[in-house]
């Protein structure tokens, strides 16, 4: 009966397995990794210190690699404790030969060694995939007393040679590195391809011949001080030392290819997926009927795309080679769903039926762009690229096939503004996806605020967002019901006390970038603060910007902003009878390398007050040395944005 109890209350237990004897031998082993040996400079600003990291990639053949890792990390405080947990990934194409771990006290005394029964095996199901073969061997060596050191050793045997190791000993912030080594051993006929970035001076690869048949490459770094993520800066992983490696030749489940050029990589992809575009006659019939009589090329593509959106949906299935090879078009035709490869392949097949040629285009979505100078498998997504044949000037339609509500031809921040590798029968070709500039990414707001003598107000606000500015509103405008829209919006409005009296969204998808217009009605109890004879109003109703936090020490990294944009706000304040403005904020005009800003309030002839604010930020990247000036720009905007109007009661 005890057993039954555990059904719900008592899940992941049992199997205590090997009860090994005590490891505390008389005298014990010599101490390892004593914390006292860590240089003070590496403890500064660090939650953990990599004491030793030793990674070896052994290329057995074009189709098999063995990765061996030994890593010791001293955990200085609880914020570094996640480094005491290890997860080693594996899937259908790889296996973990072993995972071992030990913990050491601050003085280097061995505290304990993990028992085999303490290594877990979990599914790394991402929650949204219908099926995924990703799994992890996991170990936990967290200790209650800081500091302590953990040492993990593992080996991964892989038959997926599309990916070689990326060596980045300092991938996270507030982690310092005492010593890290990366070694690649590869047969002479399979030379290593690699790219180094941000390595400390003098850390170039050491290449030696182990034998006539075996080459050895080695990198080593020492004493990397901890770094921190800085506001409006690149992710830490984009700024610390890294060596990317890639095969020259690879073989995955019998599919052989080379990676020396983008052309070759694209060709391999083409061949892997070729011949999977056959459609059932019934579907072909539907598509022919759909585009019949439509002569305009773009209109034909749109019709096919909209049919795809109405009749398919995205379901992720990532199993083995299926991570790179598409399901056949017939499968999507039968079930109405597929992942990014399957839906892109399906759309390509539908267009082919309509007499239009499209190419799948590999991209790295939602992350930093790929490194174009280093041909290798860096992609995580695929879209469809359709060059127009009959257009007078060169023109291309880009299609995101996994999203059932995405505007036709629009790439959004997910896949826009980056490189893509076109997969053609002749091989790969590097192209750019559409650029969205400040002229595309606009937010234009018109508000009328009716203030009463008690300080409460009602407002009607029309906000037109286009391009990347509308991305976050797309899901809300398209598919949520009014109650959910109100709830989501209420969480984002920068107001203390309000209620939403009206809310609606309209979408316009006719132009190259989509537009969403939001019409909002608000009641604002106590919007103006009334004290005695005066009322105080901040005319910047919804668009206040805050200053950046004060910096400590010198700026380390360049400025990386999300995207270029332009904002325009116009707020008309209808002053209640019996009040007149006593004091209006002085106009502000800022013109800097980062952008231009202006705001001003003017009393109008009809008694209303008109607040106009403009902010244009056309560029997104600036050098590190510009940061103080950028901070000053932000501080001045913040000061101008909180300026108040003072209204005085007239003695009427």
């Amino acid at each position, binding site marked *: *009966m*005890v*057993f*039954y*109890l*555990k*059904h*719900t*209350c*008592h*899940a*992941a*237990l*049992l*199997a*205590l397995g090997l009860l090994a004897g005590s490891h505390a031998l008389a005298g014990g082993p010599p101490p390892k990794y004593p914390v006292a040996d860590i240089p003070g400079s590496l403890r500064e600003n660090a*939650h953990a210190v990599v004491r030793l990291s030793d990674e070896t990639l052994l290329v057995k053949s074009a189709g098999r690699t063995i990765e061996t890792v030994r890593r010791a990390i001293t955990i200085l*405080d*609880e*914020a570094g404790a996640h480094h005491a947990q290890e997860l080693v990934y594996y899937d259908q194409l790889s296996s973990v030969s072993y995972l071992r771990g030990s913990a050491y006290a601050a003085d280097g005394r061995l*505290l304990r060694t993990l028992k085999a029964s*303490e290594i877990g*095996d979990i*599914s790394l199901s991402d929650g949204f995939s*219908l099926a*995924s073969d990703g799994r992890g061997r996991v170990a*936990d*060596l*967290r200790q*209650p*007393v800081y500091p302590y050191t953990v040492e993990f050793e593992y080996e991964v045997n892989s038959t997926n040679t599309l990916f070689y190791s990326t060596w980045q000993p300092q991938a996270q912030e507030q982690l310092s590195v005492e010593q890290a080594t990366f070694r690649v051993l590869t047969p002479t006929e399979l030379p290593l391809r690699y790219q180094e970035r941000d390595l400390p001076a003098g850390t170039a690869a050491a290449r030696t011949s182990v034998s006539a048949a075996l080459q050895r490459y080695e990198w080593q770094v020492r004493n990397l001080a901890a770094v921190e993520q800085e506001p409006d800066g690149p992710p830490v992983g984009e700024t610390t030392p890294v060596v990317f490696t890639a095969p020259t030749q690879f073989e995955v489940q019998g599919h052989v290819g080379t990676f020396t050029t983008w052309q070759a990589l694209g060709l391999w992809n083409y061949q892997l997926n070729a011949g999977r575009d056959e459609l059932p006659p019934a579907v072909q019939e539907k598509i022919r009927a759909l585009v019949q009589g439509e002569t305009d090329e773009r209109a034909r593509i749109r019709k096919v795309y909209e049919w795809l959106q*109405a*009749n398919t*949906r995205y379901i992720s299935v990532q199993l083995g080679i299926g991570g790179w090879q598409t399901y056949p078009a017939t499968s999507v035709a039968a*079930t*109405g769903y597929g992942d990014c490869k399957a839906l892109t392949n399906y759309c390509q097949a539908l267009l082919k039926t309509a007499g239009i040629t499209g190419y799948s285009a590999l991209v790295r979505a939602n992350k930093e762009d790929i490194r174009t100078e280093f041909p290798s498998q860096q992609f995580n997504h695929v879209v469809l690229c359709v060059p127009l044949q009959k257009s007078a000037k060169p023109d291309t339609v880009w299609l995101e096939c996994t999203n*059932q*509500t995405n505007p036709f031809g629009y790439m959004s921040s997910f896949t826009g503004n980056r490189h893509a590798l076109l997969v053609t029968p002749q091989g790969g070709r590097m192209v750019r996806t559409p650029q969205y500039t400040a002229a595309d990414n606009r937010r234009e707001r018109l508000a009328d605020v009716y203030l009463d003598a008690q300080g409460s107000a009602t407002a009607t606000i029309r906000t037109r967002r286009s391009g990347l500015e509308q991305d976050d509103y797309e*899901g809300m405008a*398209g*598919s949520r*019901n*009014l109650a*959910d829209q109100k709830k989501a919006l209420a*969480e984002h409005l920068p107001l*203390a*006390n309000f209620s939403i009296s009206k809310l*609606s969204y309209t979408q316009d998808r006719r132009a190259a970038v989509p537009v969403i217009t939001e019409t909002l009605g608000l009641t604002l*109890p*106590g919007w103006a*603060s009334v*004290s*005695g004879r*005066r009322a*105080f109003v901040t005319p910047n109703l919804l668009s206040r910007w*805050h*200053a950046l*936090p*004060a910096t400590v020490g010198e700026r380390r990294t360049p400025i990386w902003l999300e995207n270029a944009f332009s904002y325009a706000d116009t707020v008309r304040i209808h002053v209640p009878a019996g009040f007149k403005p006593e*004091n209006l904020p002085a106009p502000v005009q800022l013109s800097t390398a980062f952008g231009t800003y202006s705001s001003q309030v003017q009393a109008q002839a009809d008694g209303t007050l008109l607040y106009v604010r403009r902010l244009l930020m056309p560029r997104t990247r600036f050098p590190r040395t510009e940061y103080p000036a950028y901070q000053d720009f932000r501080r001045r905007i913040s000061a101008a944005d909180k300026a108040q109007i003072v209204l005085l009661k007239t003695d009427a």
Partner: protein
Amino acid sequence: MKGIRLQLSLLGLCLLLACAALAQKAPALPIRFGSVVPADFFGMPTATDTAASVAEYLCDYGTTKIVGGSAQFQAVFERTTRLRIHRKAGYRYATVKVPLYTSNGRYERFSNLKGYTYNLQDGRISQAKLNSEDLYREQLDKDHIQVSFTMPDVREGSILEFTYTITSDFIFNLQDWQFEHSIPVRWSEYRVTLPQFYAYKTIIRGHLPFAVKEELTVPYSTMVSASTGAYATPQQERISALALQLRWAMKDVPAFRAEPFLTTPHDYMRSVHFELAGTNFSGRNYEDLTGKWPTLWKMLEEDNEFGKALSSPAPLAAEAAALRLKYPEQKARAAAVLALVQSAAQYNNHAALFASQPLRRTVERRLGNAADINLLLVQTLRAAGLPATPLLLSTRSHGQMQTLVPAISQFNYVAAHILLPDNTDLLLDATEPELPAGMLPERCLNGQALLADAAGRWLTIRPAARHTELRTARLRLTEHGSLEGSLKLEYAGYAGLAARRQIRQGSSSDYLAGLQRQWPDWDASKPHLLLPDSIQHPVAVELALHMPSSTTQASQLYLALLSSLGTIPYTFRPEVRSYPVNLGMPHEYVSLVTLTLPKGTTVQEMPASLSLMLPEGSGRFQYSVSQPTPETVQMMARMQLNKAEYSPAEYAALRELHQRAAAKCAEMLVLSRK
């Protein structure tokens, strides 16, 4: 237990059942698989219907029956579901994931999956069949499997229908049923047939009304096979008896929307759960399994991962004996033992009622779940001569409890209890390094807890402290109109505990940097942290504040200091609330500002003082401004929330209190300069 309605019925024993009259006939089935007709498509929302949900369950029907099998009874659960997809955003309801449990050669088996997607085109229904081979099976961990399937040919306006069976070797807990979902449900019904020889406790959560709630006595018959020896042919035998048929249904259930300050949405969504209470196979001898506390206790006491773990040799016995000599006074000794266990093992953030390993292994690994650590605490307290008892409870995220009859599945956590010589209760928890004796972590502040000993006494967990924040600002207005000075922030009680945790889990520099960003109107610099050794003293942070002058020339200055220092921590934005506001513990926020004026600056207008009170003193806001000397102005604002939970009926007043307080804090102090 305010605000949550838990009901419990210990099902009648079989003897009573046998006397009950048999029901005439079973109620009609709410759904027949495969019977979708064009009428089911009626009322599909139009594209512009802003009130439409993304999808809707038309009918969700489940049954559980206990049937005989070979050597053991099994629970057979069948579910048939029909739903409509209204919007593309509702496509996710076309994918179904079913968790299954396995343990020691016993299983939950998934079978009989059938499904069709129906689409209405030109007045005709087309159907697409779910290929039952497209069923994905994933081993989540050693004991848990997940099967997933997704429906074919799904579009806006599709009707989906699927049915499947789970046959379970585990009859201790039957399948739960959830009536309420994040999309509306037109009809949801669950029927459970329990033969007279099994008695179950049913636990019902949630608060919307049932359309049907009935118990019928029906005839029951099943085949069992029992083998008498390894080579003997199993003997088939028919058992005929009576059974209790329970039926619940809900009609037109609106979509559930989570609100802030809830313990867990599961406390408020309608659901029903089962736990085996006892058996009576002979018709004469009812054997209580968990229906009464003494049998439940006996089982816990003998469980290797609970009682037996406690009675095994204590790995910290030597240290405990030393503390016993050192601290003759019980309370001091308990605190010393708590500190010992806190530093002996790290909590792995898994709430648990049962130990995952022998207690000596927890000491060896220095890592464990809540039961590993707190059972070790109980054991070590006992070894130090203290009368310690495990305290069973349910964490806030696990949901609130009923207390009429104990059900083991309701608990997911164990803490420790000592009855002190003066007959007071002392509660302890060793999962957090800085928690003092007498204080439980926030996750445990969830109403009731049960002492795991022969008597099985329930006790109410009262928060040992408030969440208290105090801000003291000393500011000086310069002749140029800028403000300079210092701000001291103090966090006491649960606020102090949270601050300590944040500092521990991040770092003091991250914590201070976070605080500096908290005041967008101010330049906050030179943060200085005062972290006393004992949590009895507040965590304090001192900051230098500076606000540059915005209007250098003006003859009048307007300051809303309390508002710019963020005196009112939250406003309750939604206008209405369906569920209680559960804060866990009483809260108090106090801000004090002393402003010194330069020569020649005088106070022209001061906001009026204000005092607001919620009914029965359950909350209070006080505000005052005074001018003790011509050069100084003192401002004070204090918000007190004296209850841990406010009912939906109290919400409007709570919201108004906050909004009026925020408006008051935004009122200007008007200064005049020469």
